[in-house]
């Protein structure tokens, strides 16, 4: 096990290094001079020269990459050209909102996708199965931005059932910032009105962001369950006279969960970066909206900072899943 963990950690480190290399490389090939971008078009010659010397822009590329890594170790991601603040500060401010949204969407995907997939597998080729497959196919093919617009129009504007864009009613006092996730902060502060409102604000964007993942998950769970349900040991369990509930919960689900588990890390990671469109439409003040605004104003330190953060979180999630998998399935450990 220790050897496996070490090997897997080594891979994760390598991938992390690779990510930094690409963000550095992309920052190099963009046709924008960072000195001019930071100082403005009208900067004087010696100002630009001084800026380049200060940030090592006059050194060979490999040395610059070394300097870049050194700064990363001190969590120095440069300064955003748009907000004028250190990128790391911006990320700290905007990441919690994205995490809140992505985790909620993840929950939506699990709550919808898991039972739907199990149900479909148990009723293979009968109406429930066909319904789940049809819905999964449709949700998986719908452009998420249109789903957002449509649901906002229907459930918010026409029916008034759910609040519109934003995280909290502007007339409510936001809870003191602890985690940066408004719903959790409201809960911590014991502010029930704010908690209820924050949750209501989360429903639509979380559903919109999580719907495609729910569809994917339902398909995966269905396939995994079908695989397991056709095995001999399940037939034995049926023959023992156990109820469907017991067969599924006690025997089938455990083995069907393994192939699905590998998917979950990637799914959550995908939700973090997939939040871009959802956040833009729901005016959700997270990384997605931040990176869109930054890219629009060609603020590359900010864009690369977000890319790096999301990439690293994604790798960590996959690492976690792999380690969990090895813990649950001894065949991996000893292979």
């Amino acid at each position, binding site marked *: 096990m220790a050897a496996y963990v070490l090997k897997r950690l080594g*891979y994760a480190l*390598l*991938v992390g290094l*690779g*990510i930094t*290399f*690409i963000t550095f490389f*992309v920052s190099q*090939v*963009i*046709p*924008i001079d960072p000195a001019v971008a930071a100082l403005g078009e009208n900067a004087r010659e010696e100002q630009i020269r001084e800026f380049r010397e200060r940030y090592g822009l006059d050194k060979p590329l490999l040395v610059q990459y070394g300097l870049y890594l050194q700064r990363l170790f001190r969590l120095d991601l440069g300064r955003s050209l748009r907000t004028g603040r250190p990128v790391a500060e911006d990320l700290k401010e905007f990441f919690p909102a994205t995490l809140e949204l992505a985790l909620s969407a993840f929950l939506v995907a699990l709550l919808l996708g898991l039972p739907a997939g199990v149900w479909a597998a148990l009723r293979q080729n009968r109406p429930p199965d066909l319904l789940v497959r049809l819905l999964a*196919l*449709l949700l*998986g*093919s*719908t*452009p*998420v*931005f*249109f789903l957002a*617009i*449509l649901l*906002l*129009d229907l459930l918010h*504007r026409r029916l008034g059932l759910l609040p519109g864009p934003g995280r909290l009613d502007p007339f409510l006092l936001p809870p003191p910032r602890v985690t940066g996730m408004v719903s959790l902060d409201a809960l911590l502060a014991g502010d029930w009105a704010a908690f209820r409102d924050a949750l209501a604000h989360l429903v639509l964007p979380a559903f919109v962001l999580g719907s495609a993942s729910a569809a994917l998950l339902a398909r995966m769970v269905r*396939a995994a369950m*079908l695989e397991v349900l056709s095995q001999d040991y399940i037939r034995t369990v049926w023959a023992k006279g156990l109820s469907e509930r017991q067969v599924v919960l006690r025997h089938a689900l455990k083995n069907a969960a393994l192939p699905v588990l590998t998917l979950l890390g990637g799914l959550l*990671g995908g939700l*973090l*970066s*997939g939040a*871009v*469109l959802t956040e*833009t439409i729901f005016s959700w003040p997270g990384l997605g909206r931040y*990176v*869109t605004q930054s*890219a*629009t104003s*060609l603020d*590359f330190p900010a*864009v*690369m900072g*977000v*890319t790096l953060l*999301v*990439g*690293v979180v*994604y*790798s960590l999630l*996959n690492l976690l899943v792999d380690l969990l998998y090895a813990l649950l399935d001894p065949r991996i450990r000893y292979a």
Partner: protein
Amino acid sequence: MPRLLRRFLRNPGAVLGLALLLVLLLVAALGPALVGDPLEQNIGERLRPPGPAHPLGTDQLGRDVLARVVHGARISLGVGFGVVLLASALGVAVGLLAGGLGGFWDNLLMRLTDVFFAFPSLILAMAIAAALGPNLTNTVLAVALVTWPIYARLVRAQVLALREREFVEAARALGAGQGRILLKHLLPNSLTPVLVQASYEVGSAILTAAGLSFIGFGAQPPTPEWGAMVAETRNYMAEAPWAATAPAVAILLTVLAFNLLGDGLRDALDPRGR
């Protein structure tokens, strides 16, 4: 092959997908000649509901929504196929090299695909599109650059599995060189999963590209690209919902066609046949 085809055609979903795709191809090929100018504005006719003169209504600038949707078919299919061709060419080459060469090169190339896999694809595509300038060509490049690793992994896995098979051994015994074995024997036999994946990926590329256009990093107005059209008309959902709904449904049907096709191909090729 006829047996495969029979299996494929016995699957109603697959047939529906194929039919949808044929209709779309037809619309993309012939449609633009049959409908009006997608760019012509007529402010007096703005936000008209669907009717005889405008089967899908008009948008906020009085442009014919049907004409725009039909012209958009060519763009979206072009983007989808373009992305998949580029990405699969790159991915297949990398996978073939990694699987064929093995050892150090395999390790290096696979870690490279890991790195690209870890990248938030939409964000990287945004960054690339922003740096190179937002337009359709750069959208295709950007999306291809973030989707090739999937083909590399597929082909490598196939090559590793095939390398030890008898027919490859036979070729080697007959004196075929490494390059010949890779290209003549391993490549053609690795392409089946690539085909299935490619079908899904066309739909997924169309979705990503439409998303990029929607937030302003792809096709620019007034180009009749479906994602850009939804973005342009989204503020008129209340008074003219057809203007945003028509291009969105077009995206939905196109992506659906490729997903059905992918499912159909997978089931027809999978001997366990589910």
